[in-house]
């Protein structure tokens, strides 16, 4: 789904609501849901599919 050149539209996987993403978003990128604030992962771009990002694991970090 595409709204205009600056944003993409996608379905929030948690609420089902339509949300806008920056047009330069890419696969693997983590975004915050504007609806719930939940971290979402971009799974694919064509079509745009989002999933709830994996929860923090103990060995994550720098």
């Amino acid at each position: 789904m595409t709204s205009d050149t600056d944003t993409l539209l996608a379905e929030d996987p948690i609420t089902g609501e339509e949300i806008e993403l920056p047009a330069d978003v890419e696969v693997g990128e983590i975004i915050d849901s504007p609806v719930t604030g939940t971290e979402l992962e971009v799974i694919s771009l064509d079509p745009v599919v989002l999933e709830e990002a994996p929860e923090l694991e103990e060995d994550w970090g720098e």
Partner: protein
Amino acid sequence: MRVGILYSRIRKDEKLLLNELRERGHEVEKIDVRKERFGLESTTANVDDLDIVVDRCLSTSRSLYATEFLDSYGVHVVNSPETGDVCADKAKNSLALAEADVPTPATEVAFTAEAALEAIESFGYPCVLKPVVGSWGRLMAKIDSRNAAEAILEHKETLGHYEHKVFYIQEFVDKPGRDIRVLAVDGEPVAAMTRTSDHWLTNAAKGGETKSFDLDERATELVERASEAVGGGLLGVDLMEVGGAGSGEYTVHEVNHTVEFKALDAASEVDVPAEVVDWLEAKVAAAADGEEVAP
């Protein structure tokens, strides 16, 4: 150049790096380590003809194994698995710094709650208990009393993972409400910031307020030596001021090998991703010229 990026999630840091690489016309191969397999002689990841691979794995275990395998195939990977191995483990990190005579907080490791309690009592209160593997200030404990020590040790013993039975105990450094994060490439500082908080943990991930910081000669020297102590690379060196802000005396408490830089990029005037890509280009050029490449 052709640059591989090992990742499992694209954070703001990776996005900044990807954008800079692409703007300069470099070819980028994104390698999602969750989808790949690593055999003894080859991998499903497309690493052929890559000039360099940058490890940006969020997970320490994935970072260590993926870089180890790529290195075994002869792929030029930064940071090297040797650097990752030292930086990922706080005990190894402390040992490397101490062996290089870099000032670092007094530290002891113990393997039972009883021995850990003895170490805590010998440090006195407060002192600090940290997991040997971990980041962002998670599961760090400032221990103010024997009662607290006994409770925390009991909790750690029941956490399950064997690493929680490696008790890493450290003197509490009375820092002036801030510590210093320096991003360095092979020991050369790129940018630095202070992280300030009323809380004893000042990590940016814990909400510490960040501000650009000018390194003095002593801090610059310590960053260079700390980098060398862990094998060099793209590193986040963390220092604390001892004797008050601006004292000019420091202790290096940690060197991070998959350093985040979005906060530093925002806090400083330096274009951090541009500096990182400059460094990658230099590494690749040096390798092409047949020079010995620092890890």
